[in-house]
């Protein structure tokens, strides 16, 4: 999958000009760059919901309905319990993954079972991110996008989240693109770093 001649200008402010990147499905593709460099906008562009100002060519990017996109700092429906949220993902996605995937079973047992009946609104930011990442990984899509999945998350939960994201590549050979500022957390993972800006 490739992005070619990607440009993004807001008036006089040029965030990207003729940016090119190639993404692979045997590694986690990590977009890095300073705050305001346009990482989220590039993810939006790849997902087909970018601003009008973002221009460029997309080669072999899956159709929108085959893209899972985990947004940054989304609280989701706060009145739903963790169990209800995961059940929604199970019903939409592939619920057999949980039975066959050891990563799912371990994470559910170690992290999710104890907060299963807690409302999403009562969770910490890190716990919410973990629940939603778990749910996203239950979906059966071609491309998975995660925008700052470990931002504001403690070390333990970050490891769980990154383990789930890595399992998409290692166990299911899916294409994964994520953004991150915490490069040091990625040392144990198969990653390809792509710097923007």
């Amino acid at each position, binding site marked *: 999958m490739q992005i070619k001649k990607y440009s993004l200008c807001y008036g006089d402010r040029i965030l990207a000009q003729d940016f090119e990147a190639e993404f692979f499905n045997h590694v986690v593709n990590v977009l890095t760059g300073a705050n305001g460099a346009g990482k*989220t906008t590039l993810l939006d562009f790849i*997902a087909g*919901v970018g*601003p009008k100002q973002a221009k460029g060519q997309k080669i072999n990017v899956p159709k*929108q*309905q*085959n*893209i*899972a*996109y*985990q*947004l940054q700092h*989304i*609280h*989701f*429906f706060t*009145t*739903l319990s963790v169990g*209800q949220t995961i*059940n*929604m*993902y199970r*019903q*939409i996605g592939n619920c057999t993954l949980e039975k066959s995937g050891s990563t799912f079973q371990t994470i559910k047992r170690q992290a999710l079972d104890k907060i299963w009946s807690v409302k999403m609104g009562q969770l910490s930011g890190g716990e919410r991110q973990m629940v939603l990442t778990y*749910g*996203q990984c239950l*979906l059966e899509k071609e491309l998975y*996008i995660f925008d700052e999945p470990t931002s504001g998350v403690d070390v333990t939960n970050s490891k769980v989240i990154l383990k789930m994201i890595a399992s998409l590549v290692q166990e299911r050979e899916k294409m994964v693109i994520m953004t991150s500022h915490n490069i040091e957390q990625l040392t144990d993972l198969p990653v390809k770093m792509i710097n923007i800006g």
Partner: protein
Amino acid sequence: MNEIKALCKVYLVNTLSNKFVFLFNLVLPTIYFLYKNIRYLSQPKVAFSHQTMMVVSYFWAYIIMVTLLNNVIVAIISQRENGFYKQLFFIVGSKWKILTANFLVQLVILNVELLIFNLVVIGVTHNFHISLLIAGMIATLSVAVPVTFISSLLFLLKVKIESINVLVTILLFVLFLTINLPKSHTMGDLLSLLNPITYIVDTSYQLLLFFFNHVIQGAATVRLGIVTIIYLVIGWFAISKLTVHSIADRV
């Protein structure tokens, strides 16, 4: 289909968690109806006259309009602004699935609301008529889609979420204020139906006439049919313009 079923559960849990909205949609109009008609409680059976049907139609119109505006349209705008809509869009892959799920849940809630209101009407008038319950259900099913479609015009407004509730209150006020504008000719009748409240009142009244008096007013039914098509066309355009982008904040 699985996606819609899963989203229906989510929307049902979410709607039932906010019971305050039922105060505005159902409890207030029911209290007002009781206040205006409390005298009938001590009287024997009250027959369903044309006037009774018209009064009931107005109350149905309020309940239907307010429920669809608040629970479907404003809810989607709110979800768009806080990013839930974008998140859901990439889970199910289609805005129509999100809209359908939310709409179906509210349609069930709307039917329950009208059922409760109609049971109050039956209690006050001491006149149990199954036709009232059936007409209420069919009225809801008939007008809910076109009214939701025309209300989707609100998706086009560049209004912040903080302002949308004020805007909806003003809109309801104006719509109710203009329902009894003089209609001097057929075109006036048709134009007045472009007010969704009038459209719901007229549809409800026609259904009540049919169920209670077995009367079908051909010209009125044709006018309602034309307006339904207009609502659907305008609504389709408005929904096609609905994007995941919030107006105020980047999500």
